[in-house]
């Protein structure tokens, strides 16, 4: 009973701000509403006993992605997005698409025979996840690290000053001295 209440509270915390993320006229409001949605998702993970996933969600999405989104959005200075015209017609195609995807997902999830496991008390998952990363899933793990390294080097090269134009005498700013 209490568990159901917690679930519905978290679902509400996820869905109501999500609505405003999509429908807000002000793009910065959309960004801030995203915070509540991400917190709700983290709460859902924690509620399902996935403690590591919940904290990672907070760390990566709230601490990283959301802050970057807010930064870029604040810098762009678009006070109010103008309606791009078209009236009700422009809702038609996305609406049909969204309904189609929803129907498909609903059919799949209600038609599948889910394997139900009785777990009782949720157990800590960190050690299991860590061990799996270093043994069974070492290749995908290293592969993702490589992709991130490439992204880091790419970002450093993109912001590098062109040769010959020195900033404030800090010449080492030009070196592609990327660490990872």
């Amino acid at each position, binding site marked *: 009973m*209490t568990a159901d209440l917690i679930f519905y509270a978290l679902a509400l915390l996820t869905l109501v701000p999500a609505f405003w993320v999509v429908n807000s006229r002000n793009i*910065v*409001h959309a960004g*801030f509403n995203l*915070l509540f949605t991400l917190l709700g998702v983290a709460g859902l993970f924690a509620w399902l006993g996935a*403690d*590591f996933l919940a*904290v*990672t969600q*907070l*760390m990566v999405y*709230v*601490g*990283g992605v*959301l*802050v970057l989104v*807010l*930064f870029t959005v*604040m810098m762009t200075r678009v006070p109010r997005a103008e309606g791009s015209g078209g009236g009700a017609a422009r809702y038609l195609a996305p609406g049909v698409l969204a309904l189609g995807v929803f129907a498909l997902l609903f059919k799949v999830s209600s038609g599948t025979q889910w394997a139900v496991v009785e777990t009782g008390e949720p157990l*800590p*998952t*960190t*050690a299991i996840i860590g061990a799996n990363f270093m043994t069974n899933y070492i290749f995908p793990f290293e592969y993702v690290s490589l992709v991130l390294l490439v992204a880091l080097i790419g970002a450093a090269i993109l912001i590098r000053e062109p040769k010959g134009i020195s900033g*404030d005498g*800090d010449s*080492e*700013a030009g070196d592609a*001295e990327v*660490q*990872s």
Partner: protein
Amino acid sequence: MEILTDLIRSWFGPDKMSDQAVFITVASTMATIMFIVMALCALIFTWAERKVAGFIQSRYGPMRTGRWHGWAQAVADMLKILGKEDIIPAEANRFFFSFAPILVLLGSLLAWAAIPWSPGFVSADLDLGLFYIFAVSSLVIVGLLMAGWSSNNKWALYGAARGAAQMISYEIPLALACIPVVMYTGSLNTTDIVIAQQGGMLNWFVFRNPFLFVAFIMYFIASIAETNRGPFDMPETESELVAGYHTEYTGMRFAFFFLSEYANLFLVSLIAAMVFLGGWWAPIPGLDFAPALTFIIKGVLMVLLNMWVRWTLPRVRVDQLMHLCWKVMIPISLICVVGAGIWMMLSGQAGA
């Protein structure tokens, strides 16, 4: 936590309350205690900060309020701030302007849950305690951005942008510096980290090997930047930005920012004491008669060190700040991680 659970069970009779009710009672009691401790710390540290600043600058600091060395100055300041009018600027965004201080304080307060005060006395004995502390601290960053943006004031926005940039950058060396310790312990649980340092000063993680000592220094520098203090107080430089992200705040909402600032200061000092300085273990084995007191004394000493640095060093520039983080501290922290790993392997401590 267990002590409190048993206490509440014995008060209300063994089977009168359901497990959930007991859990909720214990959790809310712990939250209240933590909040009171946090508010008291903020009170004492504001006074201490002014006295330390005075001492360093060869003056007295507050002397009048109360009798002895102006001890009541912080109480008087608190009462004054509680009585102030709560002003919301006409052009500000009301909802986010009101919500930002709550978010900032929430981020600081949540992190306190995983601090192990003494054996068995920790609000939330989480399996990934240290990771949790760093994760919930990121709420503070979003709170800063929210405060700066919703104030509709250019100084506030600049302050928030600087603060957020600084905090997400310095979070990396801060977390990286703690990784060697996690490698040694084999656990992210805060209690386990303290227990692994049992047996005198030489077993504290700072003195285990040279890489950990360097990691501790990296942690200390990053923690100053993380709390927006000392030579890294770019988000609130009063000579250029008035007061940074809380320029427009008054009264209780300003107090929330203030409280969060000092709570964060004590939090990072307690984490330093917990991760590197042996937590509740006394420097000499056998003197562990007051674990919680030992832990708090270590935390307070770290706070004083922090204040010393703040009032001694001049402020750095923004570009120097970023240079220091990305090109100096992150590489050194990474070397510490690798070096500590190699040291563990060679000294046969790996796989613990």
